[in-house]
C-alpha cells in the first residue's frame, strides 16, 4: 500500500500503535524506549520508520498516531519528512498526526529556523511540539504527553476523540478561523 489510511484496518483489542517517522535512528529509538516505559492500561506498540511509504509485505496493526520527528540541526530530516508526508492520507490529519521538533536547545547547530517548522505544521493543520530528545528529562515528559495523545487517538479515553483533541490544542496556538 502506498498511502497510509487511518481507518482501513480493524483496531486491535486494547492496543494502541504509534508510528515514529524521522531520519535519525538513535533519537527515534530513545523516544520509543521512553514511551514504552510509561505505564498505561492499554498495550502500546511503537513502530519506527525512516521514511514513508512503509513496505507493504509486513503485517502491521492499525496505526493510531503518526509522529514526524524533525531535527533542527539537519535539513535532511526536514526533506525526509516532507517527502513522507505525501504518502499519508488526508484524513490522517484530523488529529492523528503531530510534528516534533528536536534540537532547538543547541542554537549554534541549528540550520533550520523555527518558523520553517511552524509553517510546515500550520500547512498540515497539526500540532507541533518542541523537545530536546537528547535530554532525558525532556524526553520522558514528551513521551508521557505522546502516550496520552496516542491513547486518545486510539479511542481508549472516554469522552475525547482525536478530532476533539485537535481543536482543543488549536485554540491555544492559532488565531480564529476567519483569519485563515
Amino acid at each position, binding site marked *: 500500500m502506498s498511502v497510509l489510511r487511518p481507518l482501513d484496518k480493524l483496531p486491535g483489542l486494547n492496543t494502541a500503535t504509534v508510528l515514529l517517522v524521522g531520519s535519525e535512528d538513535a533519537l527515534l529509538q530513545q523516544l520509543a524506549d521512553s514511551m514504552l516505559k510509561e505505564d498505561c492500561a492499554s498495550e502500546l506498540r511503537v513502530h519506527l520508520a525512516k521514511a514513508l511509504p512503509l513496505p507493504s509485505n509486513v503485517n502491521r496493526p492499525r496505526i493510531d498516531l503518526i509522529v514526524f520527528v524533525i531535527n533542527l540541526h539537519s535539513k535532511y530530516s526536514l526533506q525526509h519528512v516532507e517527502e513522507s508526508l505525501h504518502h499519508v492520507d488526508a484524513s490522517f490529519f484530523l488529529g492523528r498526526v503531530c510534528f516534533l521538533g528536536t534540537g532547538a536547545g543547541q542554537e*549554534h547547530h*541549528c540550520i533550520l529556523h523555527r518558523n520553517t517548522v511552524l509553517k510546515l505544521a500550520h500547512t498540515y493543520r497539526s500540532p507541533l511540539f518542541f523537545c530536546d530528545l537528547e535530554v532525558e528529562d525532556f524526553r520522558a515528559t514528551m513521551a508521557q504527553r505522546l502516550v496520552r495523545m496516542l491513547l486518545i487517538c486510539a479511542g481508549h479515553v472516554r469522552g475525547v476523540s482525536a478530532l476533539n483533541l485537535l481543536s482543543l490544542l488549536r485554540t491555544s496556538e492559532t488565531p480564529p478561523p476567519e483569519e485563515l
Partner: protein
Amino acid sequence: MTMDPYVASESTPELTPRQSTSSGLKDYLIGATPLQKRLESVRKQTSFVPTPPQRKIPQCSQLQENIDSQKVAFLLHKQWTLYSVTPLYKFSYNNLKEYSKLLNAFIAAEKQKGLAVEVGEDFNIKVIFSTLLGMKGTQRDPEAFLVQILSKSQMPSENREGKVLWTGWFCCVFGDNLLETVSQDFTCLPLFLANGAESNTAIIGTWFQKTFDCYFSPLAISAFNLSWMAAMWTACQMDCYMATTEFLWSVPCSPQSLDISYAIHPEDAKALWDSVHKTPGEVTQEEVDLFMDCLYSHFHRHFKIHLSATRLVRVSTSVASAHTDGKVKILCHKYLIGVLAYLTELAIFQIE
C-alpha cells in the same frame, strides 16, 4: 402596579475573548525573534503564516566614504573573536585618556597578582583607547572605539610605538533596534571584537564589566546564520576575487568527528547565486535555501554524501569568513560595514 424594568447594564466591552487574545497572539506568532517582529510591524500582517526573514544585501553605505582605508586596514585580514556586550553605563568619549590609565593600572595589578599567564611578558605595557571614526551605519549609532595593548620598549632609542599585543574594539552598526529601548545614560555598542591572547581578553572584559556594569558573552554563530552569511557575501559584487569560496562541515560521529571541506571557484558561486536570486536588493529565505540546496545536491551527485545531514561549521568567501565558534575574518574593505551590520544584528539578538 408597575414593575421597575430590570435594566441590565452591559458594560462589558465589545471584544469577544477571542479577539482580545488574537492581538497578543499576533505579536507572539508573527516573529519568532524581536528583529523579525519589528520588520513585520512595518507591513500590515493579516495572515498567520509566519513569513521568513528578509535582509538587504550589504551595499556601500554613505558613511563608509568617511572611513580612511589606511586607518582601517589593520582591521582586515585578522581573526576576530566575537562577543556581545550589553549597553555600557555612564561611558563617555571625553574620558578616554582616563580610561587608558585606569585600565593600565588594573592590568598591572592583575599581573602582580600573578593571574596573567603570558610567559616572558615582563616588559611594560601601555593601554590606548581611541575612537574609530566612521565605523557605523547611521548617524544615530554611537562611535566605535578601540582598545589596544602595546608593549613599551625598554630602550629609549628604539621606536616609541611598541608592538601591538592585543586589540579589541566595540562597535554598533545599524543598531536602531537596541538604541530605541535604552535610556540616555547608556552607550550601546553591542558588538565586541578581540584579537590577541585570551588571558588579556578576560582581564579587559573583567575591567569593563566592573567599570561600566555591562556583561560580555561569547557570540556563537549558528549554522542557520552561517548559511545566510554565505548567501549574502556571495551576492556581493566583487571586482576581483581574492579567495575561493569554501565551506566546512562537521560530521558528528564517534570516536572523532569527520570534517568535510567543499571549495568552489568564487565566480561559479556568484553565477549560481545570480541564477537563484530574484528580488533585487533583498535576500529572502527561499533564495538562501535554494542556494544551499543546489550545493548539497551537487555534492551528493558526485560523492553520494548528504551534506544536509551534517553540521555547517565554517563559511569562507572573498568578503569574509566566519566560524561557528564566533571567529570572523574580514577580507574586503568595501563590505566591511555590511559584515559588521549583520554581526551587530546577531549580537543584539543575543543580548535580547
